[in-house]
């Protein structure tokens, strides 16, 4: 359905990983150094045990035995202390890197052009935000340090083995081709298999949620058999995915296990033969065998974390794929010299003034003469070749209330988004003060025009934060005034903690109508000179909505309001009404004029407002 967001390629992921490492060279060196020392300390025991066996077989004194035991104990203590600090150092580093990763990702999301989000749908983005960030978290917090530790440990054990006797290190090599081939085979298939498994599993989970949430509908429409079929289908898919990964493990695990035991046997038998030949001592054979046995654990950890690393890499690729602010509307704003529309070349100078005013968080500084959004002959298509607007021109007067009505799918909402600078027209122009909206920096754009749609969202946070987010500098009085303007102050104060009540997902629930009031309160506080309301009161009870719109109109006096309305009283109360049909404005005039003209608006009005 929706095109997916892009995914970064392997080179980009590698480059990013490198820059991440380079940001903390000292922390990385310290962590690795401590792990290395800890691994080295851990190697003393087998060596000393070898000495013990050697000594006992040759008949040594009690004092020597005690001394060696004490020495082993000392090394254990040193190793424990080193492990503690090494672990803490690498966890600190991991947490730091992880925090950077997720914060940078959220900033990239926040800068994402809306058109990109809409093309991809929020589903994909949500998955990346939740699943991929957690997968990466696991990788950075666990897989990376564990892998590093394993690599360091393996290196040191091999070193110790060579020190015991270079000859005794040779039998180990038998395992290398077995483990290499097995791991390679497994890793090529595993990540895709596990991704499929997880996806199928979350289908089951989602299916249960849906069954539970829709249980009344299931009963009403007698969908029980279908829900059960869907569940069985989900289970079937999950089982197929599980069986595939089980097959992968069934091949790989025994290969790996045998790959671990072969070197131990080889070291023991071949080493023993060397001993019998007199090339090495018994202690050397014992120590070497124990070292090789000790190799099993880090190698196993290394191999088992490898697929986790792969999953983390894939998640990272998807996170990096969410393009930075370099693309789209937000980025083009920073491009030097926003192109002025022909005919008003002088405009850019004054608009720059408006821009700096916008950064201070208020539109008051905007020059009076600039405060008009003008739409000229715009065409727009969501998909190539299918224009939804066919050359629309609209010049709302300053301070005017203009209502847009028309059947759904006629292009009202699209026109609203163009007016608010959310989309750029395919041809024609939408300008303020002669400058194209789509070239304005985001902050400046918001000082001119804001859009509130019927799609409401209450952010997690207090009610106050939810209103004040559009103007961080707003005072308590500002917030209260904004809430009062949309008739929301009464219920807001009646909430358990008043304006400090935590709302949004998981917080105190707000009704859709209250959420819409909240959206309008934000709008009042943001205070741009032009407002686009796309069915912004559709979820509020009709009677209350009308009162709300009137009180809002009083507060917004002097602001230009373009209201897309499905209730015709909004049109009735407006200064002018534009009827949009099939991507064109077919009627434009005051309510009375249009009713008198006897066109489609007049017919609709008659039936809608209740006269039989």
């Amino acid at each position: 359905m929706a095109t997916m967001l892009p995914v970064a390629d392997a080179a980009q992921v590698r480059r990013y990983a490198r820059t991440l490492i380079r940001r903390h060279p000292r922390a990385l060196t310290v962590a690795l150094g401590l792990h290395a020392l800890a691994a080295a300390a851990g190697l003393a025991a087998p060596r000393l045990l070898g000495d013990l066996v050697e000594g006992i077989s040759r008949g040594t004194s009690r004092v020597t035995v005690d001394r060696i035991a004490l020495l082993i104990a000392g090394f254990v203590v040193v190793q424990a202390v080193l492990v503690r600090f090494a672990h803490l150092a690498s966890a600190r580093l991991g947490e730091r890197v992880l925090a950077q990763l997720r914060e940078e990702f959220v900033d990239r999301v926040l800068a994402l052009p809306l058109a990109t989000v809409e093309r991809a749908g929020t589903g994909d983005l949500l998955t990346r935000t939740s699943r991929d960030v957690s997968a990466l978290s696991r990788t950075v917090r666990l897989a990376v340090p564990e892998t590093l530790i394993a690599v360091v440990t393996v290196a040191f054990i091999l070193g110790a083995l060579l020190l015991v006797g270079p000859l005794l290190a040779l039998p180990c090599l038998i395992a290398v081709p077995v483990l290499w081939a097995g791991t390679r085979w497994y890793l090529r298939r595993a990540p895709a298999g596990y991704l499929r498994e997880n996806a199928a599993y979350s289908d089951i989970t989602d299916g249960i949620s849906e069954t539970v949430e829709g249980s009344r509908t299931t009963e009403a429409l007698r969908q029980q058999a279908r829900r059960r079929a869907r569940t069985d289908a989900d289970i079937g898919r999950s089982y197929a995915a599980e069986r595939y990964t089980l097959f992968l493990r069934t091949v790989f695990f025994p290969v790996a296990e045998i790959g671990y035991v072969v070197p131990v046997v080889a070291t023991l038998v071949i080493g023993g033969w060397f001993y019998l030949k007199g090339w090495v001592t018994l202690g050397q054979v014992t120590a070497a065998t124990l070292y090789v046995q000790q190799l099993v654990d880090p190698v196993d950890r290394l191999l088992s974390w490898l697929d986790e690393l792969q999953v983390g890499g894939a998640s990272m690729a998807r996170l990096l794929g969410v393009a930075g602010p370099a693309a789209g509307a937000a980025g083009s704003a920073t491009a030097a010299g926003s192109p002025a529309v022909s005919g008003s070349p002088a405009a850019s100078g004054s608009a720059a003034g408006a821009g700096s005013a916008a950064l201070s968080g208020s539109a008051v500084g905007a020059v009076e003469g600039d405060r008009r959004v003008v739409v000229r002959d715009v065409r727009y298509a969501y998909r190539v070749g299918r224009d939804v607007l066919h050359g629309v021109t609209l010049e709302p007067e300053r301070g005017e209330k203009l209502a847009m009505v028309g059947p759904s799918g006629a292009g009202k909402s699209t026109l609203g988004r163009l007016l608010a600078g959310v989309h750029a027209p395919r041809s024609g122009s939408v300008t303020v003060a002669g400058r194209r909206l789509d070239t304005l920096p985001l902050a400046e754009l918001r000082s001119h025009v804001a859009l509130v749609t019927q799609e409401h969202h209450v952010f997690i946070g207090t009610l106050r934060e939810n209103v004040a987010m559009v103007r961080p500098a707003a005072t308590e009085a500002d917030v209260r005034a904004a809430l009062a303007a949309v008739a929301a102050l009464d219920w807001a104060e009646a909430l358990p903690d008043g304006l400090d009540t935590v709302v949004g997902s998981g917080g105190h629930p707000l009704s859709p109508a209250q959420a819409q009031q909240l959206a309008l309160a934000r709008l009042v506080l943001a205070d741009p000179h032009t407002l686009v309301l796309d069915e912004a009161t559709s979820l509020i009870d009709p009677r209350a909505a009308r009162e709300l719109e009137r009180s809002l109109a009083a507060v917004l006096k002097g602001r230009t309001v373009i209201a897309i309305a499905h209730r015709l009283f909004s049109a009735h109360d407006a200064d002018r009404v534009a009827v949009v049909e099939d991507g064109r404005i077919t009627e434009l005039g005051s309510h009375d004029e249009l009713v008198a003209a006897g066109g489609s608006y007049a017919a609709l009005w008659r039936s809608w407002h209740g006269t039989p």
Partner: protein
Amino acid sequence: MRSLPAGDPGVPDDRSATRYLIWLAGRQKLLFTAGILLGVTWMVAQALMPAAVGRAVDGLSHRDEDALLTWGLVLFGLGVLQAVAGILRHQCAVRNWLAAAYRTVQLTVDTANRLGAALPRRVATGEVVSIGTSDIDQIGHAVDITARGTGAVVAIVTVAAILLDASMPLGLVVVLGVPVLMAVVALLIRPLHRQQHAYRDAEGALTGRAGDIVSGLRVLRGIGGEPVLSARYRAESQALRAHGVRVARVQSMLEAAQVLLPGAFLVLVTWLAARFALDGRISPGQLVAFYGYTAFLVSPLRQLTEAVDKLTRGHVAARRVVRLLRLTPDLVDPARPATLPAGPGELVDVESGVRVPAGRFTALAATAPEDAAAIVDRLGRYTDSDATLHGVPLRDLALATVRERILVADNDAHLFTGPLRAELDPHDSADPAALDAALRAASATDIVEALPDGLDSRVAERGREFSGGQQQRLRLARALVADPETLLLVEPTSAVDAHTEARIAGGLAAARAGRTTLVCTTSPLLLGHADHVIFVEDGKVVAEGGHADLYDGEPRYRATVSRGED
């Protein structure tokens, strides 16, 4: 091995959580027993490996080449046995795990279906959903660990026997020392688990925050606030980072303890064994073997601790499942359901006095929307009442009969995920003409046309990719395709624009021609198209007639439905 998934989950033993777990295991008797036997083989093979190494070393110290080769081969054989038994055991474990989890899923879905509309009243939906998100995991783990845990017990006993046989005092040190060691580590682990749990909660909250930003992105684009949200996320992310470091501090102590305690114990055993070896009470090979056993015992003991933990969690999860399975619906069928005459009949709500005539298009305008909702709940038998159909009280009928004859379609109706075509056609009528007609009557054709794959497009979760008005029109279309004998609609046009409302009002009556329909609405557009209008105030019928007559004759009716100048 039986192939999964089982089509029929069977009748669960829901008398208690433990019985439920036993029932689940019992359904997989063969696989479960095989899992235990293989678990034992796997563990014992591992347990015997140090002995083989020890014997080989002993052979070497006597310069016995044959012993070296023999015990080398035994070691290899044990390695292979361990690998094979290990993977077979893993196969059983995964299948047992899945069977338990899948069966629980099926039972949960069946129970939710059985409870139907009563479900939200009987249990918090979050609780049922958490069965899907976490409880099935826990139950799967509990069933799986039982097999593994049994293997661990046998392995521990085997090693203890070997050690005690080799040297009683030394054996006792190991057999008693290792469990004490494990207990100490388990105690140390507890605060870590608490910290980790809190960290996961905080991490979940941060993920929720990011998801919140994504969900609100469109709203943000219209009005701004990105810097504020970015700053807030950053602050919480840094708080989580600090939390993570705190967890790491506890964990690093534990990691150190896990080196120090077993290490110290290992030294003790080695030292004692070395002295014994020096005295000739044990051989040098046995010294090596003791070292190996002490290191090995940690693994089965850890499995035992894990088993205790997982069985506890599994029990908690099973308790939740059992609680759900035991729930019964609000409305029960009468012992001997009455028979209902065929064909459309008058539907009557005794309490309010609403009479819905058969085969006609009736509208109900209520001053308070709650009144209309209550009337519909009674007429559709979602609550118990004296309502009748064809003169037969609904409570004397089987609920299935009521659902078959009467469909209540309200704005809370759920849009399920899946292909749109199937979603719009709940009873698989597979009649393209009917579908097309319903879409036209609901003025929803444009929605389908705008979708890239038309009717074959997938509906996202809760239909969230459709606007409120689009969802409403799709729900209406679905109700029309279902084509019930009696259809009760609640505010079917509350979220659509005036033009669309006009189109729906024009087509709805025609689409339901000859069928019984009741529309609860205050829209003059819809009311104007009704054969008959019922006006309800304070839960009772106060006036009836045509829209025009009521509009002129009933000022309160006019006030309720008028949307014009004040």
